[in-house]
């Protein structure tokens, strides 16, 4: 793992998109891209997989719904069955609204929690910014500079061709955690 990286800054989404496509095609390894807003296609251009957070949503929804279905049935038919309006103790149709709501609630909470945990977002976290403008209107592409075989000129040339405002080589931030699982994308560094 190298401790150097190349950072190029762009001011438009078209520029960054084309730069990323070409950089990757040229065999450069993109450590991370920073964007002020979601640019369609950029994730895929940078080689990211789709998130599987949806699985968590489905699981949580199922658990939330089932738990509350059985809880309601237990409350009404087992814990303390009472005759309410002559209805049967197990009045399944009446449980549906709450089952639905608890399913949605559990799913929503779990999904967002998953996002935060997976992306290590937590309140009060100090943001590690590649450039103060990336939350405003600039895009940044971070290339890995391997210990050898990095064609600095080529990289600079591609970036400049795609409208990079600046291209710099910098050190990988020191406190950046080492990736726990090396096979996972090195984008980890920028979490």
């Amino acid at each position, binding site marked *: 793992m190298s401790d150097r990286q190349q950072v190029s800054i762009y001011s438009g989404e078209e520029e960054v998109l084309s730069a990323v496509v070409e950089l990757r095609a040229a065999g450069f390894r993109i450590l991370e891209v920073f964007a*002020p807003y*979601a640019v369609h296609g950029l994730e895929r251009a940078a080689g990211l997989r789709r998130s599987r957070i949806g699985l968590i949503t489905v699981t949580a929804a199922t658990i939330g719904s089932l738990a509350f279905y059985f809880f309601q049935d237990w409350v009404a038919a087992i814990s303390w069955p009472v005759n309410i309006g002559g209805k049967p103790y197990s009045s399944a149709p009446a449980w549906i609204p709450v089952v639905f709501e608890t399913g*949605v609630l559990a799913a929503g909470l779990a999904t967002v929690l998953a996002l935060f945990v997976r992306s290590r977002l937590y309140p009060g976290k100090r943001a590690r910014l590649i450039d103060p403008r990336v939350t405003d209107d600039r895009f940044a592409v971070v290339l890995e500079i391997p210990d050898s075989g990095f064609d600095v000129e080529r990289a600079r040339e591609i970036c400049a061709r795609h409208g990079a405002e600046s291209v710099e080589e910098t050190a990988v931030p020191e406190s950046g955690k080492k990736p726990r699982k090396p096979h996972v994308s090195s984008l980890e560094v920028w979490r």
Partner: protein
Amino acid sequence: MDRAAWPLREPLIAGDKTPGQVTIDVSRPLEGKATPLWWAAFLVSLVTLGVGIAAVTYQIRVGIGTWGLNRTIGWSFDITNFVFWVGIGHAGTLISAILFLLRQKWRTSVNRAAEAMTLFAVMCAGIFPIIHMGRPWLAFWVLPYPNFRGPLWVNFRSPLLWDVFAISTYFIISAIFWYVGLIPDLATLRDRFKTGVQQRLYSFFSLGWNGSLSVWNRYETVYLILAAALATPLVLSVHSIVSFDFATSVVPGWHTTVFPPYFVAGAIFSGMSMVVTLMIIARKTMRLEDYLTHRHFDIMTKLILATSWMVAIAYATEFFIALYSGNEYERFAFLNRAMGPMAWSYWIMVSCNILVPQIFWFRRFRRTLPVVFVATIFINIGMWFERFVIITTSLHRDFLPSSWASYAPTKIELATFAGSFGLFFTCFLLFCRFLPVIAMAEIKGVLGSHLRPQTVPIVDEVALEATAARSATAELEEVAIPGPGAVSLDLSPEETST
């Protein structure tokens, strides 16, 4: 508007904005001193809220008898306000979630404010079921918590309990949705403000967001899940459940199966109107003319017109079914609505909800904001009266003529109602002052959309497939964003991609 300059379609955002300008424009109201107009509005809201708090405090101290209710009419202003606010609260999620699903890009200008409106409206709504209780200090008894009473649980058959779950879920999910949407903007603000309490707060709540693409990737998925899988069914369910309060009862005029869709349509109708009202105010006061263009109002008023017709059909259906049912109590209930002692409320409802929106057939009115403003206010009055009609006129004359009664609100009720507006606007004004009213990160994404086709360029795709050997390209699937023509509400023909 010079249409020639924009060959494809009228732009969503006027003034040829760049992302940086968006940041500047949206952040402007948050920086520096508040305008006198803001202060005036805030003070008025705060005073109204104070009046409301005083009224509620008085009511809780003295008794619910300080409301004009009686043994026949157990609910009136309280639940009317509740349903009204819940209805208002529906537009936020609708605009955010459903329009997001339908890829209606114009939503980006209004979704943030609409979501905030949802939250505040649900807050206002949630207050009423609590304070309408005779013993609000025991409101926690509606929660199923373990206890030393046997244990004694709650009654899951009660629509009111469904409400508890529906409203709290709706509030939580809406809050999450809103907050998740805010995170990138908070980060923008954090980085724009260099110091100060505000900056520290933005920093705290922006969760260390740094715009990294991997997080954006996950974020987009979560946002889609929240919108598509959760918020959309939720928004439909919540008002359905609210309508169950009435639909599952035996009261003629309440006991109606058409209520769930009727209530949802009504909620969207009223919510949209409220959004339009607020956006017109925000546009003027916060100088967001470029972001809230006539096109936005054009689309929204069309939606209002459509939902107005849905509501009209519901009114007609109700009447028809009552007459067709052969149930004399049911028939009477509806005749009484239209011609009984409280017919005035019925006719206010009909004129505001059905007649007034018909002006939106005309493009000229749709784009004349003062007209739109007045019309939407009338619609909200009408929608308030719709709930009042359903609740009060059904209750006031039910089965036994001996128990028929009439209703007039007391000062306390009026003050409480006003107070809920105070709360709403206080929250909304604070929101305008301290948080970006326009979703910057989203609007930046659609700035040039009128010039661009909607899908990711296929050429790039092919090149990518071919060259990125290292990555697991096999797993990359076409992020097939449906062409808007396929599923669009067909309200914005301009959106059709070239």
